[in-house]
């Protein structure tokens, strides 16, 4: 019987693959809910933080914080890239990097150098191979990222900005729209993009304790941290969603392949039987 055993082995191996993809799909389906809960839980902070920043932008302070001042001469830019630690999540990371690369190339063509910090294993190994200057990296944040784990990479970039080593800072991550859609997003972090200036009815300013500089330093640092943290959570939810979808289509493809292989196997078996019978009949006729 032609290749019957080989086809059987092939079917077995596809079945095993399907077991793995099914399991991964199920794991992601359960994790995505937790990731979404985390995302929701961190939203009030982000919202109130934005509100406070909005107030600060409106206050008539004598002190202008460097984070809020646009620099005319951009010589070096920074990117904070949020990626996943693990693969098998479809084109999630690839899409993100593909959205970012033209920007990086455009800067480089203009003679502007690019600095990166990477969150997640995938970005770290990808951009290392591209030989783009990497200032910092953090990996293996797990299922429940903590702000404290992100402080390091953010501080690296903020210090670089304060010291004038970079003149612009952006955040790159996958925005979780819904389970089927994740949007590669690039947001400008620094200088703070100007908000919609609503004309204030009267000039007012905060009482700063101890002084404007210290307080604004602190607030704006926390603001950037909250944005990066939020992006990390969005990316985590995106990762699970993308993995779930990718693994679902992998399982479906496996099922289809098994169907086709079974058909081929049955045909081969039937052909072998037919051949055997005709041989016997032919043999008997010859006698």
């Amino acid at each position, binding site marked *: 019987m032609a290749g019957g055993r080989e086809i059987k082995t092939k079917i077995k191996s596809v079945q095993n693959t399907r077991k793995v993809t099914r399991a991964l799909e199920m794991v992601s389906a359960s994790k995505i809910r937790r990731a979404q809960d985390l995302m929701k839980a961190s939203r009030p902070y982000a919202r109130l933080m934005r509100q406070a920043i909005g*107030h600060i932008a409106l206050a008539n302070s004598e002190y202008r914080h460097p984070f809020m001042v646009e620099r005319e001469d951009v010589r070096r830019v920074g990117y904070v890239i949020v990626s996943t630690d693990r693969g098998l999540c479809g084109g999630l990371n690839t899409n993100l990097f593909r959205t970012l690369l033209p920007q990086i190339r455009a800067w480089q063509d203009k003679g502007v150098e690019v600095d990166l910090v990477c969150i997640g294993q995938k970005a770290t190994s990808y951009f290392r191979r591209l030989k783009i200057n990497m200032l910092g990296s953090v990996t293996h944040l797990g299922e429940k990222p903590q702000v404290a784990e992100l402080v390091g990479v953010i501080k690296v970039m903020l210090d670089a900005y304060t010291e004038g080593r970079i003149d612009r800072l952006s955040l790159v991550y996958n925005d979780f729209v819904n389970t089927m859609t994740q949007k590669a997003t690039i947001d400008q972090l620094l200088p703070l993009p100007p908000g919609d200036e609503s004309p204030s009815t009267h000039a007012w300013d905060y009482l700063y*304790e101890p002084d404007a500089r210290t307080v604004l330093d602190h607030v704006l640092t*926390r603001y950037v941290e909250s944005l990066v*943290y939020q992006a990390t959570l969005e990316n985590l939810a995106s990762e699970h969603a993308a993995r779930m979808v990718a693994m679902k289509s992998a399982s479906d493809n496996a099922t289809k392949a098994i169907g086709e292989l079974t058909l081929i196997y049955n045909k081969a078996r039937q052909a072998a039987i037919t051949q055997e019978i005709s041989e016997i009949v032919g043999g008997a006729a010859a006698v």
Partner: protein
Amino acid sequence: MSTIRCDIVSAEQEIFHGHVSMVIATGEMGELGIAPRHAPLITRLKPGQVRLKLENGDEQFFYVSGGILEVQPQVVTVLADTAVRAADLDEAAARKAKDEAERAIANRSDAMEIAEAQNQLAQAIAQLQALEHLRRNLKH
């Protein structure tokens, strides 16, 4: 009795929101008592308690490990830190992030590299086989 809206949140969860008659917190320059119609103010908080006097006279306590207190005419916002933060701790974290990047750049035996090497090996083998094939064909 007049009240003011108060929101307390940390990056990881919402802690309190509602109307209160007074907010008492440990600011960097000392204890602060914020009553309704306080002037706009913004300050850093020291690790310590935030005490809320509710409308019905009850008190509620929250521990914050630092953060920001913002007073607006309509609302008091406390943006609490989730972990104790200090300049030298941040510094150490930043150094760690840099080390991590350097390690990632220096580390040549990472899975990606191995895959690349295997790829090149496979290509080399294929080329050798092609050469072998050519040579055999030439002999015939």
